[in-house]
Every structure is written in structure tokens, then in C-alpha cells.
């Protein structure tokens, strides 16, 4: 089950129907709370896609309240069980988002023109493994190990760490980028 949440609609429905800018910390907190409520109401979907395309301006406070705190909630042991995916992130949103990801040592998956991209704090090896899953996936660990010419155990460790960080999901014994076609090759 997937859920698409348009942040612009949430902003106007939650805070003020005249706003198109995600600025100020109370606004960000109100929007995040509304998003979390939707996720709970629908019964924790497997993948929740947060769409920023209707958001004009995003400041650091809102990026922290919405993006960082939402990811931190998903990283909690008692947090939601699914995966969160972002889309509609403009060039101008990137600076505040990357700043808060760095501050909290977080990473996220965002769709750009239908292609998944990884943002935030990951090691170079983790990025290579994640990109291999994106480019060839859904895939088994052995396929990634062969593609990157690394030991299977090493590939499994990297992939499992990415799964724990909700940057990859398990699918039929293999790995897939959240939101990608759920078929294992």
C-alpha cells in the first residue's frame, strides 16, 4: 500500500489556505503532525511519498521540522514501519534539506523525473551499493556484489545497513529502492 501526501495541500489545509511557503518552525511542526496523522489513519502504508512540488519556499526551520523529524520518527524503534520517499524537491529546496540531513546524519530517497536519487549522509561504499540496487534492482545481494566486484558478505552488510536506514527495502529476498518496481531479478 502506498500513500501520496501533497505537502502544499497539507500546508494550506492545516495552517492557512493562503500560504505557499513552508517557513517558520511552528508551521513545519503543524505540517509534520498532519502528515503523521495521515500515515496513522491509513494504517501505516509501505511507502509514503511526500510531494514538495507545490511548495514555493522552504526554510531551514521547516526542513528540520518536516524532513528531518519525519525521518527521525521513521528511524525510531517505535516509529512507523514503512518507508518514506520524497518527490517534487526543487533546486531551491536542496540547501535547507541537505543542511538538516547533515546536521542529523540522515539520508533520504527522492524522485527526480521518475529517477530515484540519494541525498544526505552516506559513505561512498553505501552510495555505490544503493546506486547498484537502483540501477539494476530489485536485485539480490549477490548481483550487487558481482556488479561492484566486492565480497558477498561486504555487499550484504552495506545493503542491510541501507535497509535499516530505510533507504532500501527488502523484496522477495532481494533489495529494492522504496517506490521502485517490486520485482526481483
Amino acid at each position: 500500500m502506498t500513500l501520496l501526501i501533497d505537502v502544499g495541500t497539507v500546508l494550506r489545509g492545516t495552517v492557512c489556505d493562503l500560504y505557499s511557503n513552508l517557513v517558520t518552525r511552528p508551521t513545519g511542526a503543524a505540517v509534520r503532525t498532519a502528515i503523521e496523522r495521515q500515515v496513522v489513519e491509513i494504517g501505516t502504508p509501505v511507502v509514503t511519498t511526500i510531494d514538495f512540488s507545490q511548495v514555493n519556499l522552504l526554510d531551514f526551520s521547516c526542513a528540520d521540522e518536516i524532513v528531518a523529524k519525519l525521518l527521525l520518527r521513521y528511524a525510531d524503534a517505535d516509529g512507523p514501519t514503512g518507508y518514506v520517499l520524497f518527490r517534487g524537491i526543487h533546486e531551491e529546496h536542496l540547501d535547507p534539506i541537505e543542511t538538516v540531513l547533515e546536521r542529523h546524519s540522515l539520508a533520504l530517497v527522492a524522485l527526480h523525473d521518475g529517477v530515484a536519487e540519494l541525498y544526505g549522509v552516506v559513505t561512498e561504499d553505501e552510495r555505490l551499493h544503493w546506486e547498484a540496487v537502483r540501477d539494476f534492482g530489485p536485485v539480490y545481494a549477490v548481483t550487487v556484489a558481482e556488479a561492484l566486484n566486492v565480497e558477498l558478505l561486504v555487499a550484504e552488510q552495506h545493503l542491510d545497513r541501507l535497509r535499516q536506514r530505510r533507504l532500501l527495502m527488502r523484496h522477495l529476498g532481494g533489495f529494492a529502492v522504496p517506490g521502485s518496481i517490486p520485482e526481483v531479478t
Partner: protein
Amino acid sequence: MTIVISVPPSLDEQSFEHVIEQLAPVPLGEKILVDARHARWASPFGLTALLCVAQSREDRMTFAVPENPDTASYWSRSGFFRHAAELYEMHGTVPRQRDAHESEVLLEITPIVQTDDVHGVVGRIQQKAADILHGQLGLDTAITGAFGMTLSESCQNIVEHAGQGGWVAVQAYKYIKRLGRRVVVIAVCDAGVGFRASLESSPGHRMSDRWDDAMALEDAVLRAASRFRHGDAGRGQGLAGIRRFVGRWHGKLTVRSGTARIAITPEWDEDEALTRSLPFFPGTQMQVTIPERIGDPLPKARTGASTRPRERSL
């Protein structure tokens, strides 16, 4: 007896120190006249800071309006007198308030008290900011969003830390003496508690022997400290973001709070990085200056040159 505080003919972030130097030693309860009769020009910082002067004491001060009709008219169009009339006892001829139609006024003086005010100013300036920053100052279109972010985070500092309302104004003008090119300036001023008291209110704050306004400014501006940081690692990113913004666009950031002032200076300026032991003025006064981008490289700061005078054409 009434103590007269003279407003310099050209009032900006640097010359405002002369106002504070005169004001600081005046005992509480004294009658004060803020005399702007001979003022000819004021930056957005100067005008917003003058409103903070009135808020810095409980006793209502008197304000003598600039005698030059062009100056008074400009101050009126920037929204100064509308707010000053609520804070000062006004003396002199106050021109009738008209809307600011000049293209260089991005945002007339606006009070910031609550979160909605921040939404208001950010929403109001967006199109005009794009026109001026990209169209007139030749800056890349990418600056527009970052400029809005900077404005938002600066104003939020008032809502979250000042303990009382403050003021914001945004204007473009020609910065002749230092740069010889146009700049856009954000001024955000309040007469609230200031950085030192704000950080002291944090449960995790540890007082040291060296703790003073200067150290509080360094913590907030350079080390992203925040009174909310205790228990919320995401706090304190606003000023860090503003610092990155001015760095990217060869701009300048100055923040004055209490008895100290910090400056993040670009290659074209030579301001003191940190100034201590200034005369006390309550609250926080911040200025962001972004210069026009043209083909020529920005001029280097000249050794020995004054950082003070700047002009604009009325």
C-alpha cells in the same frame, strides 16, 4: 531636563553607534529627545534601529522629525513615521503616509511579533525580490529562494528569542563609497533580551568566566548555538544558513547584541570581525548586505579606508 540624542546626518549600521553612545549613559527616567532634524539619509538598519531606541526604555521619548522635506518624505514612504508615532511623541511636520512605490523598497518597515508576520513578509516580497535581485542586481535566479529563507530565518529570531516584537525592512540602494555598486540590504532589529540572555535561558547552558555578549554572539553566529538546542539537535541552523548565504553571494552579515558586534565580512569590506565593550543596547540588530553582481570582480577592501560612510541617492 531633557537629554538630546542627535541622529547623525547619515544614519546606518555603523553611525547608529553614535546614537547608542549618547543614549547608554542616560539614566533611566530622564526625558529624552531623539533629534533627527539634521538627518539626511537613513539605511533600513538605521530606521528600524531608531524604532528600537523608543522600545529600549519605558518612558516615552520625543522624536524630532527631519527638517529636509525629501528626507522626511522618504522616511514616511518607508513606513517609519507610521510606527514611530506609536512609540514616540512626535515633533515636527510628519508627511502624510503614502505607499512606497519606489522600486528599491522591497519591504517597508514591518513589525514582526508572531509567526504569521514572518509568512506575511516572505510572501509579500517574493516577486519583487526576484525582479530586483535578478533583474536589477544581475544575480543568479537561484538567489531568490535563498534570500527568502534568509529573511524568514532572520525574522524568526525575533519571534523565538527576542521576547518582544521587532522590525524588518528590505531595500536596495547604491553603496557608492565602498563598492560603487548597488546592494540589497535586510535589516532586522529588536530591543528584546539579546543573544546572551536567550542562550543563558537554555537548561544546558554553562556559564564560564569569559561569558559575555561577544561570546554569546560567537556561539550563536559561528557555532550555531540556540537556547532550544538542548534536547533538539536541529536548532540553531538559521544563523548558520544565513552565514552560508552571505558567503555564497559575497555579502556581509553583521549582528549586534548587548555590548558586542560580530561581522562576517566579504573581500570588499574590512570590518572588525568581533567588537567587544560597546555601549550597551538591548536586543539584537542584524544586517545582511548582498552586492550587485557585474562582470568586474568585487573590489578588495582598502587598508585604512573608513567602513563607515555610505550613500544612496534619494
